[in-house]
């Protein structure tokens, strides 16, 4: 009845497999909200938690100069924690332009 070439067989299997995975994952996400964390990437993979990142980690990422990293951590320690990303502007050395770059790098939980 069917006369598939080997390539067509592979494509058909791939599409069916993908659809099967899609149905299973869709169901798991609906049933268990924790599964969303498995299917979709967590924000921690793309941004640093401003209230938890250590000085060593901040320096290691090479995203900010060492002195500025020290000032950010110093500010956080003296104010317990950052209430919002906007507070970064209060750290000496962070103007509007640098803030625009830094806000893409951090998140606050």
């Amino acid at each position, binding site marked *: 009845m069917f006369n598939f070439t080997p390539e067509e067989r592979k494509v058909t299997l791939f599409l069916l497999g993908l659809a099967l995975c899609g149905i299973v994952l869709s169901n798991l996400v609906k049933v268990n909200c924790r599964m969303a964390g498995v299917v979709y990437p967590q924000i921690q993979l793309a941004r640093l938690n401003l209230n938890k990142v250590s000085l060593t980690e901040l320096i290691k990422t090479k995203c900010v100069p060492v002195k500025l990293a020290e000032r950010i951590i110093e500010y956080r320690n003296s104010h317990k924690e950052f209430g919002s990303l906007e507070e970064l502007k209060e750290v000496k050395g962070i103007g509007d332009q640098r803030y*625009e770059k830094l806000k893409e790098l951090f998140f606050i939980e």
Partner: protein
Amino acid sequence: MKRPLVILTVFYCLGIILAGWIRINFWIITAMASAVFTAATLWGRKNGVFLALVLFLALLIGCLNLRNSWVLSKCHIRKFVAYQDNSLYWMDGFIASQPEFKNNHLWFILRARQIQAEKLRYKCCGEVLVKMDFEQELNYGDNLTLMGNLGRPPGFGPSQGYRDFLARQGIYLIMPIQDYRQIIRQDKFSGVGLIRGCLWLCSYLEQVISRYLPALPASILSAMVLGQKRGIPWLVNNSMVKSGTVHILVVSGFNVGIVAFMVNLLLKILRFPRKARIILIAICLLIYCAITGATNPVIRATVMGLVFLAAHLLKREPDIYNSLVSAALFILVPNPRQLFDIGFQLSFISVLAIVYFYPKLKALARLEACRIKILKFIIEGCLVSFSAWMGTLVIIALNFRIISLVTVLANILIVPLATLITLCGFTLVLSGLIYPGLANLFSFPTAALITLLLNINAVLIKLPLAYIYF
């Protein structure tokens, strides 16, 4: 000689490198090249002498081409602008690239046609980088009149890397635009209609991807399938540089292969004859190249694909070395300065290293004797990654000051995943265009695979001695 084109290209490249190091007058090289050409014509019967002269001529032509590329035409816009100049300029032209919003600025390249300074108007040519402080809907081909200062682009660091990078693209000036009043948009449209269509298609496909995936997986898939890297967070890009897997975020030969495979399959089902299939695949590859921005790796992969298709059309045995140097010549003849571009170097050297080292390593490991298919597949993956790593190690170490020790392990784990993601990505985009309900279903495994890839990468770079900065 088995591959004359390869040897000629090597000497042509050596000539470019030589001209980059040693400053010799253009006319002295021309005189030498003319003398060598005459000698080759006169003593062409002796095979050895002829070969030596031809190779030397290829070297001199490489030198000449690079020297010539440094000379700007008289009407080039840079000739009308003095550096450290604060005067106002009016500039007419059209947008020659897709405007990109990055770091809170809108960036695009304007191909200038007319420049006006202090009531004097001149016709001009050349390109200018425009940096706008506000967002405005602009597209490739829009005609604009801009008013502002023209200056040198910033260098960034002692090596002046960014300025050199722009100079290699033929851009020597930057115009900052801070106010709406500095820009006048005209109704007419310039530029190539086909490129405009391809760029529109690219942004439409990006919208399709972001319709079905959250921002982070969408940005990664856009980079892998469409070559659009602007949405990738800095931290993700940096962590992939550390693990030596950043190459998966660019469109490469694999993507071109998938496009060719998909088009071929579709045309086979529609019962197209062989020749028509090959021609249509070639057209689709060219369109895909334009959609993805025609960067060096895509041009390399497309030209190599076209050479392979031509070989099939003419029923000749395709040769990977010849196709690789054809791609190199395709890029280096119009713009020899691309030889100094890191993207060009990494793209070609990694392919060359895989082509050269992989068969030797495979023979050394006696893989043919291995009967367990999965083990064989894993070892083959290791050897391909190891070959590419050996080839690119020095360039990466010199340019990025990083040695990634985890790269072979990372590539073994991440490359098969990236392959699967790319396949899922193409399926998602196509189904999103044809049947959105199905695309929604396909988006779940695609997102899950991207999440897995990011998690593996994050774990790998946390291993001790995963990478060393020096």
